[in-house]
C-alpha cells in the first residue's frame, strides 16, 4: 500500500486531477459570490460533486491502468508476486484517497462558500452540505471502483476509461430503461441510495425514489463486486508481458 501511495505522489495524473478539482473549487467560490449558493448544497454539488465524480472515475482507472500504461507490471510482480494482495492494496488506496478528497473538499466548501455567499439571501446549511458530501463519497467510491474494474478487465488505461464511461453513461442507462431489469441496474440503485443520503432528488433516473431499499444496496454492491471479481479474475489468470 505504501508503494501505491508513493506512486500517487510521484506521478502526474493524480496531481492533475487534484489541480482540476481545486480549479473547480475556486470557480465555485466565484459562482457563489456572483449568483449565490443556490438551493440545498447546489453550489457545492456543482463545484465539488461533479468534478470529484469525474476525477474519481479517472483515478480509479489510473490506479490499475498505470501499470499497463507504463508497462511496469512485471517489475511490480517481481517485487511481490501476490496479485490478489496488489488488487486489495490498490482498492484500499482508492477508497482512502477518493473518500478523503471528496469529504475534504465538501468540508472545505462549508466555511468558504458560506463566506462567499454572505452578500446573498440564501445560505448554505451545514446539514445540507454534510449530507451532499456523504452522498458524493458513496457515489464517487462506486464510480472509482467501476473505473478500476474496467481497467483490470481491459488491461489498459485507455480501454479502462472508455469502457467505464460507456458502462456508466450508456450500458447502465439503457439497462435502467428496460422494464424487466430496471430494478437490477446499478445507476438507479446507486441513485436511490445517494438521494436517500442527501435528501435531494437528482431526477436522473425517472421518478424520485426517496427511500433506499435493501435491494438497492444489494444491487449496487453486487454490480461492484461482480465487476471487480471479473477484473481480478482476468488480472490474476493472465500472463504478464
Amino acid at each position, binding site marked *: 500500500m*505504501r508503494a501505491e501511495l508513493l506512486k500517487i*505522489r*510521484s506521478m502526474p495524473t493524480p496531481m492533475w486531477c487534484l489541480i482540476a478539482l481545486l480549479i473547480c473549487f475556486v470557480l465555485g467560490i466565484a459562482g457563489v459570490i456572483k449568483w449565490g449558493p443556490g438551493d440545498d448544497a447546489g453550489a457545492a454539488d456543482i463545484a465539488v460533486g461533479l468534478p470529484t465524480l469525474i476525477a474519481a472515475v479517472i483515478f480509479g482507472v489510473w490506479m490499475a491502468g*498505470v501499470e499497463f500504461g507504463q508497462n511496469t507490471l512485471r*517489475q511490480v*510482480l*517481481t*517485487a*511481490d508476486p501476490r496479485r490478489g494482495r496488489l488488487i486489495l492494496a490498490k482498492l484500499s488506496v482508492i477508497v482512502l484517497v477518493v473518500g478523503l478528497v471528496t469529504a475534504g473538499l465538501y468540508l472545505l466548501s462549508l466555511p468558504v462558500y458560506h463566506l462567499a455567499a454572505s452578500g446573498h439571501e440564501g445560505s448554505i446549511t451545514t446539514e445540507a452540505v454534510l449530507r451532499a458530501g456523504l452522498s458524493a463519497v458513496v457515489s464517487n467510491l462506486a464510480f472509482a471502483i467501476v473505473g478500476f474494474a474496467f481497467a483490470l478487465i481491459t488491461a489498459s488505461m485507455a480501454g479502462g476509461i472508455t469502457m467505464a464511461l460507456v458502462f456508466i453513461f450508456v450500458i447502465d442507462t439503457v439497462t435502467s430503461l428496460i422494464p424487466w431489469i430496471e430494478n437490477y441496474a446499478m445507476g438507479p440503485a446507486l441513485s436511490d441510495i445517494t438521494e436517500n443520503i442527501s435528501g435531494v432528488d437528482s431526477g436522473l433516473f425517472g421518478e424520485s425514489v426517496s427511500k433506499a431499499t435493501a435491494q438497492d444496496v444489494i444491487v449496487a454492491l453486487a454490480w461492484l463486486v461482480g465487476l471487480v471479481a471479473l477484473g481480478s479474475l482476468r488480472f490474476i489468470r493472465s500472463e*504478464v508481458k
Partner: protein
Amino acid sequence: MTAILASVDGISKRFGKTQALSGLSLAVPEGSVCGLLGPNGSGKTTAIRILLGLSRADSGSAELLGTTVGGRGFKDVVSRTGSLIEGPALYGRATARQNMRIQARARGLSDDQAGIDRLLQLVGLNERANTNARGFSLGMKQRLGLAISLIGDPKMVILDEPTNGLDPSGIVEIRELITRLPQSGVTVLVSSHLLSEVQLMCDRATIINHGSVVADGTMEQILRRAGAAEAGFLVRVAPDEVLKATGILTEIGLSVAEAPGGELAVGGRIEDGSQINTLLAGSGIYVSELRKNQPDLEGVFMSLTHDPDAPVT
C-alpha cells in the same frame, strides 16, 4: 557441492501454434554468472518469465532459490531475486530516486534498507537521481533498471538483455558491474544476444534454440566441445607460397584448409605451433603469422543454432 539457485526441468510452453519451449532444462549454480543464449524467438525470455512466476509452464517444473515457482514461500524468494526483463520497467514521470523508492516500498524496505543512494552511485546515476526517468537515454534507463534489480541485496539477479541499446562504453560499464556481482554473493543469470559480451562476462552458458538446449556447460567446455573439430593453428604465408605450404603440411598428414582472410587452417596431430614454423622455414617459406585456432562463442553459437543437424548435448 555448489548449490543450484535456479533451475528449470523439462519445461514446455506453447503460445497458440508456436511451441516456445520444448522440454527445456537448465541450472544456475550459486556464485556463477550464467549466460542464456539463443537466437530471437528461441525462448530465452519465456524461460525467464516462467522462472519469475510471470508466466506458467504447460509442463515441467521450475525452482528459484530452492523453492518451487508459484509454490509456498515463492513470494519471499521472488522479492529476494532482482530482475530486469526486456528493458527496464520504469515510471517515466517519476524520478530515478522515486522509481527506486516505489520498488523498495513494494518489497517493504525503507530507503536505507534498500541502499538506494549506494545503488544509484554504483550505476553512476547519483547526480541524476532527481531527474524524471522519461528524460533518460536508453543506457541510463538500463542502468537504473539494473540498480532497481539490486534493491535489497538479492541473492540472485536475472537480467534479460541488460546491454540492449547501450553504447560501447555503456556495455563495458554494465559488463564490469555484472562480473563484480558474484564477489558480493550475487548469482547472475543473464540472457544476451551480444555473444562476445557473454563470453567476457559469463563463466558458464546455456545455448537454446527452438525452445531446447543445444549446449550447456562452462564457457571453456562449450568452446572446447564445439570447437574440437576445428582446433589447430592458423598460419599466414605469402600468397604465392600458399600452394607450396599446403603441399608440405598435407604431406606429413596434417589437414589444411583455406580460412577466411587468406590464412591456412591447419589441423591434425600437432601439439606445438613451432613445429609448423620449423617445417615451413626448412622449406624456405616465411611464416608471417602463426596462432592457435581458438573457436569463439560466436562461431559455436552459429554452428549450433544454424545447423539443423546439430547434436543436442
